[in-house]
């Protein structure tokens, strides 16, 4: 009896010791910190590096055409319109798909490119992150999820597309669209507010 207690206590202690040391694992980047660098291929096979856009404002958008929340913002025209507006304002918009090839939602690069074209989307590039490394580095949890990187290369905004967490397209008109608001604030020399929101949508389909 006593021995059982002892072994249980030992097990708990060793587990605890292990757990206390756990937070050392790499955590995703937070607002105010340097944007993790990356180089990914886009749907046409071109290599795109974050470093290519030094000095520019960059928007990262996590996507997955299989997710109803992503479809809400594409079929309504909301995200394509934001992408066009950002492009004409000199902002670089990169759409990233971190869906694992092992998942049912995975689309081959050409199919993803076709889907984006069919939606009238206009990002500077649609990037593939099949092993999810970039998604994890940025802490992307949902699709859609947005990141804004200010020209000095630090994260200015991380979070949701807009302020109403729902899958209903009719909520778009009532919601605050966070990225255009953040871009406007940055353009006026003000810090982004809110800088962090709770993203909503489907989980990113990592491995």
């Amino acid at each position, binding site marked *: 009896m006593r021995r059982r207690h002892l072994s249980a206590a030992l097990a708990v202690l060793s587990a605890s010791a292990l*757990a206390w040391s756990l937070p050392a694992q790499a955590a*995703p*980047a*937070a607002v105010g910190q340097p944007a993790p*660098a990356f180089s990914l291929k886009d749907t046409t096979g071109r290599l795109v590096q974050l470093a290519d856009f030094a000095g520019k404002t960059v928007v990262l958008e996590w996507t997955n055409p299989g997710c*109803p929340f992503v479809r809400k913002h594409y079929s309504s025209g909301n995200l394509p319109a934001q992408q066009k507006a950002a492009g004409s304002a000199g902002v670089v918009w990169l759409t990233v798909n971190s869906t694992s090839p092992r*998942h049912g939602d995975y689309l081959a690069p050409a199919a993803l490119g076709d889907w984006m074209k069919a939606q009238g989307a206009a990002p500077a590039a649609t990037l593939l992150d099949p092993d999810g490394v970039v998604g994890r580095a940025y802490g992307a*949890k949902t699709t859609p999820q947005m990141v804004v990187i200010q020209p000095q290369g630090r994260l200015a905004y991380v979070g949701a597309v807009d302020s109403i967490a*729902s899958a209903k397209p009719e909520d778009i008109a009532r919601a605050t669209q966070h990225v255009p608001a953040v871009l406007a604030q940055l353009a006026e*020399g003000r810090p982004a507010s809110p800088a962090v929101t709770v993203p909503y949508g489907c989980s990113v389909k990592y491995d």
Partner: protein
Amino acid sequence: MPAVLRRGLAAAALLASAVAAQAAGPLAQALGTAPAPAAAATAVVETPQVRAELVAHAPEGLGPGKPMWLGLKLQHEPHWHTYWKNPGDSGLPTRLEWTLPPGVQLGPIDWPVPHRLRVGPLVNYGFEGELLLPVALSLPADWRGDSLEVSLRADWLVCKEECIPDGGDFRIRLPAQGALAAHRAAFEASWAQRPQAVAGAQAEARHQPAPAGAASAPVDDGHGPRAAPLDPGALALRIEGLPAGLQGRPIELYSEVEALIDHAAEPALRWTGGVLEAAWPLSPQRSSSPASLPVVLRVLPGPAGGEALLLRVEAALSGLPPVEAVELPPALQAALAGGAATPPPAEPVALSLALLLGALLGGAILNLMPCVFPVLSLKALALAQHGEDRRALVGGGLAYTAGVILSFLLLAGALLALRAAGEQLGWGFQLQSPAFIAGMAVLFTLIGLNLAGVFEIGGLLPAGLGGLRARHPRVDDALSGVLAVAVASPCTAPFMGAALGAAVALPTAQALLVFAMLGLGMALPYLLLSALPGLAKRLPRPGLWMVRFKVLMAFPMFATVVWLGWVLGLQTGVEGLVGLLGVLLALAFAAWAWATPWAGGLGRTVWRGLGLLLLAASLGWAWPGWQAGAGQGAALTAAAQPAVSADWQPWSAEKVVAARAAGQPVFVDFTAAWCVTCQYNKRTVLADAEVLAAMDGKRVLKLRADWTMRDAAITAELGRLGRSGVPVYVFFPGRAEAQPQLLSELPSREEVLQAVAAL
């Protein structure tokens, strides 16, 4: 058996079974065994992933003070799940929107403790299998009824690997008699999964910053070198007063707060002298810094056994740095500040002769406003009546002037005082009150009835008061001045907008002086007419035309009442408007009953009493409608204003910012139902086909800011533009750094077209 007989028997059997079913229902209910008699088709919604049912539990029947619950029962297909109130890394909590008879109260969802659902590197909190979300129900003490109808709109996100946003509309009618206990087992199973507060437990959580240097070394993972992200640290959670038997058992922690904890990271637990300590990693993308953190604990059976426990403690949270926006480097900030598109600051104003003269002129122009016209016509009649009596004329003019100036000072003083007290008000604020609008409508109806000859004021007033009026005609003149200002205020904004915006920036005494000059300006034409005999002589002689003119003037008065009714209707809905019409009808009747010279004393008393009674009753009936409408006015006006069409969208500051960021210019029409100039502009220049086409050509986003009811955001935006009342028309160019361009208050078509061309 003949066919006829067979058919007759079959019909009888059908009838009998129907009767039996009718009788059996209540009996079974009374015994508490009925299978939810209300289970109509709408109580259940089935999708390929979920079977959802609206259920009730009331073991003692329905009644005030009795234990009663409603619940949404979700049966998930295998491997599908829905979410807890904090869904974790993704997902959405199930939302319930109830529709119940008035007075019936519902508690919050009594969430059972969720399970951790791992999705790759992410963790969600949710439920699989069978789930019931219970909500406690209470009926008002005076509730009587034989049934209760409940409607529910439920929305849930159901996920396996893929996610499906779904939901349903439910409706059940619960009989009041008899117990509702068919779903007892489901409710009890849900309650068994509810976390229990621990008596005497104390919890606190402190932020532990990450050790220095955690983010120093850059890493290269094959995708190019990148900075190692900063570890945001962890919460050091301490829970005292937990039962001693829990030591050594595995414990899962759940945060009820969303986006605070790193859901995927396992908290490290240890016991120190009977105190449970946990290092709980924070989310690097934390979006809030709450002061307290409700924590749910799932205590699993340990190596030594023991039953699973579900506990809840509320930890005081300290040391958490606020979630801050990114600081821009100072050099960049300074560079950007140069071209920043901050709205034009209200320029410092000094009291100058020009300002005073401008106020005088502005006041004089007010007399041309349609709102003031009916009152002016009254004054013209008075002038003609006084005829040759110079002394009476001058005295009347002075009294009228005093009345006008005093009302301006009172209105301005109230505005300044309320502003100093922190109220968000602008010129015309009194018109944002439905009760004020109704009062004005009553006053105008009385004046109109008087002009139309339904009654004479002298005949109506008690002898004492009538005598007073005859003895002090100056009081009458002064009151008509007050009336002129009250009537004019909806029209004053266009000419006073800018001046008032500036005046409120002045020290109080000087600001009041400006308002006094405005009043003097408004009274000036009449004062001159009464003081200068040459001018007065040019007025037509008294005669029969005066009687005709007087009756004719009743119609502008009634037209004003129609307009006020429209404003009130927008503010309070059709209930408030019908209430007003009822009051006006009773008022007309009372005026007639009082003014008619009755032969008999008894008849007179009866008719007059009836008039007063009707008036009192109609007021009592209408008043709540005017009160209730005040709160929901904003939504009502947005919906009811014909102005808000597909072409025009309701204004919000965010929309302006977002559109400009996207390079789209914005036009904002600041308007109010009670602002006559606004209505005129809306139907002319702003509805002009060429103007609209020009705006569409430049992709201008057209927004309408409706100030009919009080709206702090609109008042603040007017302040930023240096104005204090409507109308205001402003173009925001599509470049965020460009200055907004204000138009005049009565813009011409050409002015708007030019402004569009300049965008």
